[in-house]
């Protein structure tokens, strides 16, 4: 069966160039980057080259990059590395669980956390952040781009507020990296986390930008890896891959591929909104990353639509998977004020660099007919159409 993958905000395939770059480090180039001999020097050089590439992606010094196991670790290291009992922390209601549940845990450690709400477009109002500041506020952690809607947050304005108030600012950049150009100075953040597998590197690697002079309490103790900010032998193949993926991302911005991707995304959403009645865009009117669109299809369960599409070969997503694999209504969409049934009826399409125009055609053919079949069998839809 033909399989088309439009769930790149969940994970992306490792690009062939990336795989080629990392492959030698599984085999012949296996040395421990801390060893003094040839083998160690070889992998040390590879790690540092990758660090430079990632630093270039976010426009910082390479010494400010700490490699991690992924987005969750970066978010946790930033948050638990800075917040102490008695501190106040400002976050938002639409953060990824890696931030949200870390903040929930801070509350049990004697921190107070303010969760800034979002408007109907899914954006935080910077004035709300300003108003939430208190004397003992230590950290603001607000994401750059939301994973479900793709909506970009006003991080530069929040960065200014943080500088004025002399408060640390961490931003979860996992869904922004590789999709929009990043510049930590323009953002004005002290910490920014990224994840490899959201940008065509493999799962299990990520990076945290830590502004020079930011004293982080480490979470892992051991050797003096990563300038004592993150102990543990480096994941060299993963780090090399992340470096390569960063290089490729920078090239795509030079070529303007992000604009091409935005056109593809716009074609998907416009065609669906035109062809299928009782649909709408979540996050309409807000700036978004170029690969993501989130559409509600009234009178259906998003869960059933995702399953039906998967059985026909199209991978998309809805809500958040709980530990059993069942879908829970999205906290992001409900935070934007969507009715629970509309939140459950929402589907995310997220593109990757590997997707082709033919794949988009396939999806645009499949989605409307599948939605019709679901609605034919939907008790709610039939009741509504009969009464009309």
């Amino acid at each position, binding site marked *: 069966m033909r399989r088309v993958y439009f769930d790149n905000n969940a994970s992306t395939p490792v690009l062939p160039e990336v795989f080629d770059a990392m492959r030698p480090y599984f085999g012949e180039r296996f040395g421990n980057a801390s060893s003094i001999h040839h083998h160690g020097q070889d992998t040390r050089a590879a790690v540092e080259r990758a660090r430079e590439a990632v630093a270039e992606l976010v426009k910082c010094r390479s010494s400010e990059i700490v490699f991690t196991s992924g987005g969750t670790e970066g978010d946790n290291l930033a948050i638990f590395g800075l917040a102490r009992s008695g501190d106040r922390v400002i976050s938002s209601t639409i953060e990824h669980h890696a931030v949200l549940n870390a903040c929930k845990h801070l509350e049990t450690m004697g921190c107070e956390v303010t969760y800034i709400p979002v408007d109907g477009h899914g954006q935080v109002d910077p004035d709300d952040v300003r108003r939430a500041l208190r004397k003992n506020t230590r950290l603001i952690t607000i994401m750059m781009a939301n994973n479900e809607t793709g909506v970009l947050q006003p991080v530069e304005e929040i960065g200014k507020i943080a500088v004025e108030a002399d408060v640390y600012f961490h931003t979860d950049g996992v869904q922004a990296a590789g999709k929009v150009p990043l510049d930590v100075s323009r953002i004005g953040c002290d910490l920014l986390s990224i994840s490899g597998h959201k940008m065509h590197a493999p799962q299990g690697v990520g990076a945290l930008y830590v502004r020079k002079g930011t004293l982080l309490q480490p979470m892992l103790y051991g050797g003096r890896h990563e300038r004592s900010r993150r102990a543990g032998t480096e994941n060299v193949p993963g780090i090399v891959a992340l470096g390569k993926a960063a290089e490729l991302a920078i090239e795509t911005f030079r070529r303007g591929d992000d604009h091409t991707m935005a056109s593809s995304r716009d074609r998907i959403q416009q065609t669906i909104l035109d062809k299928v009645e009782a649909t709408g865009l979540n996050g309409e009117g807000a700036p978004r990353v170029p690969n993501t669109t989130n559409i509600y299809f009234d009178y259906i369960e998003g*869960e*059933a639509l995702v399953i039906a599409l*998967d059985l*026909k070969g199209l991978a998309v997503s809805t809500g958040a998977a709980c530990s059993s*694999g069942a879908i829970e209504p999205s906290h992001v969409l409900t935070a934007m004020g969507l009715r629970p049934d509309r939140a459950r009826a929402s589907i995310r399409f997220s593109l990757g660099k590997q997707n082709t125009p033919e794949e988009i055609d396939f999806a645009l053919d499949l989605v409307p007919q599948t939605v019709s079949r679901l609605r034919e*069998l939907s008790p709610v839809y039939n009741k509504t159409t009969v009464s009309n």
Partner: protein
Amino acid sequence: MPLSKAIAVAMSGGVDSSTVAAMLRAEGHQVIGLTMQLWNQRRLAGRTGMPETVQGRCCSLDDVYDARRVAETLGIPYYVVNQEDRFERDVVRPFVEEYLSGRTPIPCSLCNNHLKFDQLLIVAQQIGADALATGHYARVEFDQHGGRWLLKRPADRSKDQTYFLFGLTQEQLSRTLFPLGEMTKPEVRDLARRHGLALAEKPDSQEICFVPGGDYKNFLDAYLAEQGDALPDTAGELVTTDGNVIGEHGGIHHFTVGQRKGLGVATGSPLYVIQIKGDARQVVVGSQEELYSTTMRVRKINLISVGVLGEPMRVHVKIRHRHEPASAQLEASGNDELTITFDRPQRAVTPGQAAVFYDGDVVVGGGWIA
């Protein structure tokens, strides 16, 4: 080999439904595994009277894991469908309310009526399946003469689950498959082994899935506390059948008809709960003989083998899961209500339980004991 169809299998992670998936796959059907996520076991964990750790069987991660492993072994697509909201609304709340009004509910029937053969069947159709198969021990067949779908008792009488399935409509039955209907449990386990299913020896589940350890009283307390409601005070009097007050009780939901232990009064002869009067909060007790009754009313009727009930009808009636159907006459006695007259008095007719009517192996229909 039957014609190849797309069939959704309701997979619980147990031996029966796993074997169903394996059988249908071996027959060449396109099989899709579905598991319903019905109840979050962690919700009430650690509340007063509830275990700290998750112990219940329902929707445990272990069962989902088992079902997923079976699906992988068979090479079929598998999905978990979230039905927690519906389950709470249509099964858990009614379960709590029934106990608080002095009745003894059967959540499994409600789950079959409102979740498994309603919501899950709709999802199955929506994702392109022609039918939904489950691991129930029952048979379904189309009766050419009467032009109706019939629900029948299975070959293995000791595993008969038709009592919990009386609510199925003609539409639901027409899309339902019970592939285990002709098999015995040992045969099913044997088949599971032959299909290489690791869980062939997994023990059967018995208790109400969302009530850990079967302790429904603690569940009621914990659930109501979580909802911000105190357990309503349903304490009252213990009275004899002729109206004498002989003591007090701590709440009607602690009792069920036929119960002998825990009455808190000592008399010369054994006492049983004969009746629970919800409005008056009275628990009526009496002798073993007084526990027997000849007639009962049954409400919210679903008829299966017949479309309407005209003349009074001779049937066998089952009034609880482990009850041997007793011969009786059935007659319409009001709107959506029947009166049943047993040939011989039956012990402990219990409001809230289902009454299911049989004509031989055929389920005529059923309803709820008033």
